[in-house]
């Protein structure tokens, strides 16, 4: 589930509020977005992809867990999904280098 909106990284662009398919975030005047409906989160990691400054962290567990921002920062996990995909600053990239066509050859027909 979405666990962290890093106030240190967030620029309050509110793109996550707009793109979250589950409407998890709320805009906050003069602040960073609030995780207002965490229980609706489907752990899809899409908010991380769209965040232009890698300020969000989604834990893989489908239920709330305790996550330390310091640990995530020190482990270099912010923006990890976007880097693996090839998205940069919230914009798509990497589809042209997707080797999934090779994965298909491994699978039974």
């Amino acid at each position: 589930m979405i666990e962290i909106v890093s106030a240190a990284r967030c620029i309050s662009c509110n793109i996550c509020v707009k793109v979250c398919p589950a409407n998890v975030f709320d805009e906050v005047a003069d602040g960073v977005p609030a995780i207002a409906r965490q229980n609706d989160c489907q752990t899809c990691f899409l908010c991380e992809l769209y965040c232009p400054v890698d300020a969000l962290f989604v834990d893989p567990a489908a239920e709330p867990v305790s996550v330390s921002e310091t640990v995530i920062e020190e482990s270099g996990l912010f923006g990890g999904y976007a880097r693996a995909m090839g998205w940069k600053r919230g914009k798509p990239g990497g589809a042209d280098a997707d080797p999934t066509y090779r994965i298909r050859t491994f699978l039974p027909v």
Partner: protein
Amino acid sequence: MSAFDLDLAADVLVIGGGPAATWAALEAAKAGARVALVDKGYVGTSGAAAPSGVGTWWAPTHDARRAAAEARVPRCFGLADVESVVRTLDEADAGLRELSATEYPFPDDDAGQRYIPNLRTADYLHYMRRFVLRAGVRILDHSPALELLASDGVVSGATGIDRQRDLTWRIRAAAVVLATGGCSFGERFLGATGLTGDGLLMAVEAGATLSGMEFSAQYGIAPFDTTSDKGLVYFFATFTREDGTPVDHTGDRQTIVARALLDGPVYGQLDQAPPGFEADVRKGQPNIILPFDRAGIDPFRQRFPVRLRCEGTVRGTGGIRLADGDGATGVPGLYAAGDVASREALTGAISGGGGPNSAWSIASGRWAGRAAASFARAVGETHGSRAASSLGSRALDPAAARVVKDELLPIERNFFRTEQTLTDSLTRLDAAWSGLRLDRPARGLAALRAREAAALTATARWSYRAALWRTESRGMHRRLDAPALDRALEHSLDVSELDTIRVAAPRAEALAS
């Protein structure tokens, strides 16, 4: 003055925001229609496809597609139809070729050929949004439709809310396309969040018929407590019990795991993966590996607990029964596309999850978009001035959603079914349907939750009524009290009505008379 904060008119209204909805909007706009698209979520991240990554069932020529159809249809337990499959694959191919002429960045394969059957869905839907906007379609994000409207027996628009700005809207339209996706019964899996069966409820309120609803017992394997139901890697898994002994590996992957889970925890390990597979999965499907990396588990070299997530009618096959090839629901002015529609003719009693459903979303979206635009053209400009009334507004206390989860998600109730478990579940679901009914309409987010609770409960009842009727096992419909296939039941079941649900077998009746 309008009673709605936003009062718009269009030729075609598309409800939904995934692949089928965006293809429908594009085709309708291309046919010259003024198109509005409303979605509960955000067009680009909404629906089962967006977070997942999906290969489309595809072959390069018509003859190769026919051969692929002829090879798969015999595995669909007698309910799929080669001609329907070929028509779907041909239309999906046309869509993919159009997409390959855009700036969507398909990769080249090792031979340097453009590879079009794989879509990185986060990217794909980002681009689809761009193309839909470029075609002049008006998009309303976070704006779920709550009720369909009709004028003189013809569907003529919808009303709903903007859940982020707390506004109400009405869109008058000459034709409506439902592309709201399947029903996840409240389960958590990738893309499941908005999939509460809203379109199924609106369609049946309008008088449409469903089919294939008993085939709603597809489950996906997910590692530990994640929502990651990406099944591809489990082709290469060994499953073991707590003590490390292998489970019985006969049957399909889901059944192997389901059977073993009845006895206790089950673990998986991707120890059968061929050389090179791990590197390609990491690069090509990073969201498969991401949960493992973040949990500090190496799935190729360590075992990890697995569970099954109910995928309802999303990877099941049930939905609105369509006339072949144009998305018509039988209700004038109402069309459907994607997972909200029945995929029985395409994939029968087995899951179309992945490739077949991806092809279906492209093909059925394009058909529905064109048919809706053509219907709108025939209706002409007069529709906006006719009186319109709501086709249905059934609402339940959101507590009903909990009842649906309890009855539909457990493998001992839904994956494996008996007359007894189905009857017991239906007693409780029927009690929720009548006992938790809200007579006073709610407002804003509460109105959405109440309509979702009604849609979830209705879909659960349609599914289990059909499952009770089908006294055999066929594909994903597994009756422990009737484990064999019954040749006399090799036909689809129609389901309709809200309160006293009607199950009928029109094809069987036609054969008998």
